[in-house]
């Protein structure tokens, strides 16, 4: 198991394992990654442990990368979901701006009818992005806003609809049912909708990200994952377990609070960042 090179440098192993743990990779996934890295070292004696680990992480992430491409349907409908405060509304603003910049007529649906000033926040982003926005009174039924928004988008022949949902902890059954209902209503208003279901994760969250992804994915088919707040010092290592155990792909990363602060997911850069 230790390879023809002989005994693995114990202090290097400890240092690299700790680097992975500090990147929120988690003990189980870190162990698996080390095992895979050792396998690589068996096959290629020239590799050192760090290079082997980075290669193993890159390979895992590269095979779990997805595109976010608003085409193939009109309107193309995306639902954005995730726990409280992970950056959904801001990300919707950024992605809507990108759509509008590419000449796609874009609508935002303020399906967060619970939180104070949620619709007002999205309305500012709509204006910045050059998109229209549909909202309801605070306390209204989110599924009703989604229905109204999608009907309006079809009537106006719009290209893209981004549905911003309320933050919800995956442990709250009533809020998860609400999410299921939102997704059902999408399909009824626009056949095939939502065409993309984007789960947003906060890179500063630790092992709970795996529980979040698992629970949301059990309820609603997740098309891809976005990792936000990677402009901080958090490395977002929990996504390795999500790729490994759940097979969910990552499409975009959030890199700040401005309208252009995001990028397509780059597996190699991400893997490098873990160390």
């Amino acid at each position, binding site marked *: 198991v230790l390879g023809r090179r002989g005994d693995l440098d114990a202090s290097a192993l400890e240092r690299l394992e700790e680097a992975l743990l500090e990147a*929120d990779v988690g003990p189980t996934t870190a162990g698996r990654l080390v095992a895979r890295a050792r396998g690589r070292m068996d096959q290629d004696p020239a590799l050192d442990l760090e290079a082997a680990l980075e290669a193993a992480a890159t390979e895992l992430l590269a095979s779990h990368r997805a595109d976010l491409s608003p085409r193939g349907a009109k309107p193309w409908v995306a639902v954005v979901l995730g726990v409280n405060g992970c950056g959904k509304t801001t990300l919707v603003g950024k992605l809507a701006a990108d759509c509008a910049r590419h000449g796609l007529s874009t609508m935002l649906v303020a399906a967060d009818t619970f939180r104070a000033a949620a619709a007002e926040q999205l309305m500012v982003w709509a204006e910045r992005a050059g998109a229209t926005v549909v909202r309801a009174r605070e306390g209204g039924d989110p599924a009703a806003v989604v229905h109204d928004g999608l009907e309006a988008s079809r009537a106006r022949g719009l290209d893209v609809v981004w549905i911003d949902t309320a933050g919800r902890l995956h442990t709250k059954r009533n809020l998860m049912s609400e999410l299921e209902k939102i997704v059902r209503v999408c399909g009824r208003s626009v056949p095939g909708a939502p065409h993309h279901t984007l789960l947003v994760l906060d890179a500063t969250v630790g092992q709970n990200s795996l529980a979040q992804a698992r629970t949301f994915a059990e309820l609603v088919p997740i098309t891809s994952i976005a990792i936000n707040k990677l402009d901080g010092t958090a490395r977002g290592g929990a996504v390795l377990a999500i790729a490994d155990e759940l097979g969910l792909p990552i499409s975009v990363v959030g890199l700040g609070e401005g309208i252009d602060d995001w990028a397509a997911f780059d597996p190699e850069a991400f893997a490098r960042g873990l160390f």
Partner: protein
Amino acid sequence: ALTGRLDGIFRKLTGQARLTPESIQEGLREVRRALLEADVQVAVAKDFITRVEARAVGQEVLRSLTPGQQVIGLVRDELIRLLGDRPVTLAGSPHLPTVVLLAGLQGSGKTTFAGKLAHWLKNAGKRTLLASADVYRPAAIEQLERLGAQAEVGFFRADEGTQPAEIVRRAVDEARRRGFDFLVLDTAGRLHIDEPLMAELAELKAAARAHQVLLVVDGMTGQEAVRIGRAFAERTGIDGLVLTKMDGDARGGAALSLRQVTGKPILFLGVGEKLDALEAFDPERVAGRILG
């Protein structure tokens, strides 16, 4: 759970009158794993294990408990001791108003906590004024204003375009003039590595002459907790901690990391989205949760 895993380990080494160093080592490896899974930061977990090990070596195996239960007991006691086994309340200043300044990373729950704190203080018979120095996030001031209306407490709104430090100064004047007991100041979320915004925070603290600076941290925070805690404690100076979103299933190891690195008390736990979803910190419950 951890008890089961520890018992399994010790069962292999039964027949001992005392916990041997070897059996303790193996048991502690398991405890370390549990702490890491609970998001306790790597160095904090290491330090914690060393301390428990020192207490475990030489202990007699109690007849009433399995060695596994005994080690868990030691771990739990040490966790509670570190988390803060003494309840700490929000200190009021002898001169009114007591100014509480909130700080933390983006999305950690500061604005919501501001509303919750105002509601809590109202229930305690205190008159609270809320104000927001967050001129950056779209509709941030509206958000706090709405929460203030829901909590039925005072809200101070500065004129459009007023800069954060000036908002703070005017809010303090307003709170003093109208005889409020407490002024709770909400600030914009900021990264601990954002130089200009960390400088702004220092400026806001000075402008407010804040009595209490509370660091509001998302209870699901992972390894970052140490970096965040250290940065705000060293650069801003904080008086207490608030852990939010503890109504989820995150194990909450960030609590231990934050306590270790800041030395400040955890005052409150946010346990939901509504204004009354606030609890005083309970170290026993958080310790149990970290252990899983």
